[in-house]
């Protein structure tokens, strides 16, 4: 992380964040700092506590521990917080009875940072009719509509919880392209959870893995590149690679693939082909208890 960012207060800061449902601990004593101007992928298996953590951050759930978002306490100051935070849960949360123009009118009246002209510009690029009810739009159109609303709000933090769930590949691609080209800048922060890791990995600046309510990995993408590498070797050299202490090993097309942490890439490349692991591979390795 560069120096300027380090001197700024984190946009989200959690200390000992915990959320229990009865005896189940959904979020277990999390410490997290999210600096301004980053795109963070919050990744974890089903039931790991991602959505619960997001809900705490958005003031949608009570919690134990300390949590500050934009300097506010989300559970007490949700209304104030939402002036600077936008949130897309998944494609299905826009009220189904509402008409597009009513939705725009309401958002304009309620949201101090909403820009109607921008919203109209985005919508003009879609096939969404102003007089249509949300329930008569396709899933993809609802996602486009919600994104158009959110991108027209000058917010500082955007939280996306599985925003492209159930959309086809074209909509998913367009969704992230729009987000990156028309919305993101150094002053904004985006927090994303999704199962489709492959699709967002190239836009992320930071990775946070959650497992069983705990943070399993928290590092920037640059760190991923320097810290982790994948070595692909032929079976003859597999034993030699194993002596170097890989985190994981798997086989593909008769080749052995090893994941290493903190090893010198130049020396590894003498054994075989070295590359940066994909987020998905790193995720699997972390969940299996390898990486730290």
């Amino acid at each position, binding site marked *: 992380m560069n120096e300027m960012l380090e001197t700024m207060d984190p946009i989200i800061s959690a200390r000992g964040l915990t959320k229990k449902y009865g005896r189940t601990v959904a979020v277990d004593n999390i410490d997290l700092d999210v600096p301004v101007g980053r795109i963070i992928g919050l990744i974890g298996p089903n039931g790991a506590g991602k959505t619960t953590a997001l*809900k705490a951050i*958005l*003031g*949608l*759930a*009570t919690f134990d521990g300390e949590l500050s978002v934009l300097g506010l306490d989300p559970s007490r100051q*949700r*209304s*104030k*917080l*939402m*002036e600077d*935070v*936008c*949130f897309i*849960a998944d494609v*299905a*949360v*826009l*009220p*189904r*009875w*509402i*008409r597009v123009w*009513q939705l725009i*009118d*309401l*958002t304009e*009246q*309620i*949201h*101090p940072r909403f820009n109607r002209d921008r919203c109209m510009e985005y919508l003009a690029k879609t096939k969404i009719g102003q007089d249509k009810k949300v329930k008569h739009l396709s899933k993809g159109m609802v996602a486009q509509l*919600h994104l158009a609303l959110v991108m027209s709000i000058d917010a500082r933090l955007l939280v996306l919880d599985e925003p492209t769930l159930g959309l086809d590949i074209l909509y998913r691609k367009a969704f992230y392209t729009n987000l990156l080209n028309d919305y993101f800048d150094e002053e904004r922060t985006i927090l994303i959870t999704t199962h489709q890791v492959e699709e967002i990995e190239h836009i992320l600046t930071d990775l946070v893995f959650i497992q069983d309510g705990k943070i399993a990995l928290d590092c920037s993408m640059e760190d991923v590149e320097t810290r982790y590498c994948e070595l692909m070797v032929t079976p003859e050299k597999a034993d030699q690679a194993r002596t170097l202490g890989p985190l994981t090993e798997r086989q593909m097309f008769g080749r052995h693939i090893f994941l290493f942490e903190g090893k010198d890439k130049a020396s590894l490349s003498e054994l075989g082909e070295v590359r940066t692991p994909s987020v998905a591979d790193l995720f699997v390795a972390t969940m299996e208890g390898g990486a730290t």
Partner: protein
Amino acid sequence: MNRFLALLQREFWENKGALRTTPIVIGGIYVIGALMAVFTTAHIDNELYTFKEAVRLAAQQSVDLRADVLYQMLLGSSVFFTIVLWFVVFFYLLGALYDDRKDRSILFWKSLPTSDTLTIASKLMTAMVIAPAAFLAVLILTHIVIALIGSVMILSVDHNPWTLFLSISQPFKAWGMIGLTYFAGAIWALPVFGWLLLVSSFAPRVPLLFAVLPPLVLSGLQIWIGFLRTFTFDDNLWGIIARWFIHSPSILTAQVEDGDPRGGVALGVPLDDKYDYSVTAANVFDRLFSLEMLVGLILAAIFLAGALWFRHRATDN
């Protein structure tokens, strides 16, 4: 303020069917009924002979009597509107904090910078002001249309509708009184509104059952235990609710007491002597400044605080 108006707007949009279409349908039934009466009369009354006689007889009555009858008719015609209004508000409030949890759109509403307090206030305001105002507006329109139809009929038999009834009716007094009882009725109903919002804020499903079953079961138990102990049916929750209903400052029934000069429509249901049931502003305020009302307001405050507590914690599951 702007945000509050926007939230009210939202409630109106979302509940257009209940708040706008329903009263229009009732008004339509009145108007169609009036037109059917006109055509039936025209069809079976030979050259409108009977109708002419009736108008002639009516014209002979004193102005005072005609004015009184007209006033009672205006008030009486509101009863159907009032009862439907109560049903509409009942189901509106049951769904008010439940529907968006069920369809998950609460996640969208809570992503807007509005507080839960403001949200609940907008729902309460819709039940107490917007709904009665919508019903009252359509009722007034219905009165005007029916007065026009009546005037045409009376003109057609060469009488002057202006002197016969238009000039002596007191529509503004009647509308004012109906409006007063609508809003007073809403204040009177606050404990129930609060209860419905509370149920709506936490019920995991079928809020109707959660709203109706607990008081029913509790009353049933009270009646049973009371009967076992004393073999009488003393005070119980059901009795309290029933009494609360009959004391309502709303025009709900006609007062039929032999020899009672007041006669005509009545506030609530005149079954006991606790209040005066004739429709006057003084009697409406008598109820609003009663001990019963004070207890009701305290209950309403408790229920609403509960609703707020649940709403604060509510998400999509």
